[in-house]
């Protein structure tokens, strides 16, 4: 299976496509599709065919959204693709990937603790894993732009 | 399994000169352009505070030059950058960003002391004192 065919898998779900510098294919998808995309990736490529590199959460205060980027590296060509989704800022909830990709744990715990994105189905989410208790008890997520810390 | 002869190296080390540099008596070789402490040459400095703004560690505080020193006319506000060497990370951002190339760089590193050490004396030594009349 070459790169074009692998990207075809993602294109079926994409709302829009663009390119992130330098030359990373970016697919914007619905939040509810994220888990299904990864399931189909596992089905088509197997666990050895790709790895989840990073989950980046960004607080877009002006648009009242939280943006979630999943960076996936396709093996063996090492093609980095970005799966981008937007969540509402008030109640950001998305399905967890932890039961199908164990490597997602680090990124999910971090994003929950710092940005408050709830990954539904991840039993390890916990406030105060990174953030000190005096901050987390106030319900402040430090990487949000209005956190004030 | 054949063993490499590390024992040979050990015996060779026993008879050769030790590799240790006898530090306090004999200084180790330091590159002449290695990044040691730096200070402002106040005959060139214009007191513009750009280095203080750009310093990543906030180690530079703009300070008033004491009255007894003669200050060049290019420095109307009588300010000079006072570098706190304890906080400085020796990245030389200030040296590279200075618009008038006022910084003097050295490769001096042995400045350990029991108190904080700043560039005050080094910088002020580049100025002449006012002759008291």
């Amino acid at each position: 299976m070459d790169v074009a065919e692998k990207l075809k898998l993602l294109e079926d779900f994409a709302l829009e496509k663009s390119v992130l510098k330098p030359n990373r294919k970016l697919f914007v998808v619905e939040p509810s599709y994220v888990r299904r995309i990864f399931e189909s990736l596992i089905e088509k490529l197997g666990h050895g065919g790709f790895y989840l590199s990073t989950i980046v959460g960004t607080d877009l205060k002006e648009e009242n959204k939280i943006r979630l980027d999943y960076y996936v590296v396709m093996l063996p060509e090492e093609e980095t693709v970005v799966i981008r989704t937007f969540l509402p800022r008030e109640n950001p909830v998305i399905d967890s990937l932890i039961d199908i990709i164990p490597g997602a744990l680090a990124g999910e715990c971090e994003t929950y603790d710092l940005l408050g994105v709830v990954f539904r189905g991840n039993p390890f989410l916990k406030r105060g894993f990174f953030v000190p208790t005096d901050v987390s008890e106030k319900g402040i997520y430090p990487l949000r732009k209005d956190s004030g810390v | 399994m054949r063993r490499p002869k590390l024992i040979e190296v050990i015996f060779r080390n026993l008879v050769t000169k030790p590799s240790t540099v006898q530090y306090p008596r004999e200084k180790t070789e330091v590159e002449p352009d290695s990044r040691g402490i730096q200070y402002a040459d106040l005959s060139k400095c214009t007191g513009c505070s750009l280095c203080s703004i750009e310093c990543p560690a906030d180690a530079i505080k703009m300070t008033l030059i004491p009255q007894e020193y003669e200050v060049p006319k290019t420095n109307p506000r009588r300010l000079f950058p006072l570098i706190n060497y304890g906080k400085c990370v020796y990245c030389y951002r200030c040296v590279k960003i200075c618009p008038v190339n006022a910084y003097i760089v050295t490769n001096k590193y042995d400045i350990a002391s029991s108190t904080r050490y700043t560039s005050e004396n080094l910088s002020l030594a580049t100025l002449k004192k006012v002759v008291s009349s």
Partner: protein
Amino acid sequence: MGITKVVEIPVVTTEVPIGPQHPALHEPIMLKVYADGEEVVKVEVNTGYNHRGIEKLCEKNTFYRDIFIVSRVCGICNAVHANCYVRALEQILDVTPNRRAKFLRVLSMELERIHSHMLINAVMAEIVGFETLFMQIMLDRERVMKAKEILTGNRVSADYMMVSGVRRDIDEVKRDKIKEILLKLKSKIEYYKKVFEEDETLVKRLVDVGRVKYEDATSHSFVGPLARASGVRIDSRASDKYDAYDEIPFNVITRTEGDSWARMMVRWDEILESIEMGIYILNNLPSDGNPVPDERRLPRRFPPGEAYTRVEAQRGELTYYVMSDGKTQNPYRVKIRTPSFNNIVNSAFMYVKHTLADVPVILTSIDPCISCMERVTLIDLEKGVRQRIPLKQLSSGGRK
């Protein structure tokens, strides 16, 4: 390995805390090891001794000040951190350095790879109790530090990268000095590699300890020598071809054994590759202009944009995501994902079924870098309220 098996902790286990201040572990991490006799049944990790809040700090400082802050995420891999961040800025600004600057960047990063790999191999020799070898390797490592000092001006913190170039040039004299050091080093490295291959002490302590299979390596997102020793060919130098890596010939080292010994051997082979690359760079250094940009004339305003850069650090793939909103002089978001973060957090399944004495060996073979791992915003668990996630649970990630 028992990732598919849930280990019941018997009542008679012994709890052995290792770290944060421990003679066998030079890093501020605390491993809680549950042992049944000598056999490890479960490992928990306590972290948070090293959080410095760097991502938030980056948002509070300007783009240029951040170059020096991200250099201090990790002292051992400071040049690659700075390189990754600077290349992200270059993508946003749409500037490219000239070829000489690209070659010099690669040289500084490869020198760093040599010294880092030598350091971890030396520490491994010390941990298995082979102190003579530790001292020997560290003595030869000083040569590399000298080469770094000649090139960048400081032994450890290079501060060598700047947008659209590097911060100092080298002349003929310096070039010959560095080349001489690299040529002398090569025979030494070959000798140490042979020691690691053939010495009985090392082989007995390292072979078959902490084995990782190919599938486990990818599904747990392992990167770097840890993945390459298991046969996973991940090397962003070869795939992304950033800087001058498209012009410099090199081989990606992989092995199939997947144990601690294989990981150390991958590192020795990579040192040899890096030395070859260094010599190639010094022989073929292009001279197309001045690689040092005038830092006073660099653009002060950044257009809105985002960039995601990868770099092959010594410990694996390091990624930076930088976003600029075009309104202020500060980045809107900087996300750093360090290789150690993946490698350590997901590594717990490797310890199980080994003896207590193997725990430091396995941890060292991962090449842990706690300062890299814990760069995330904020710290710190109040005293007494120890929140911990058992590593075993973490690594199995809910897969029963």
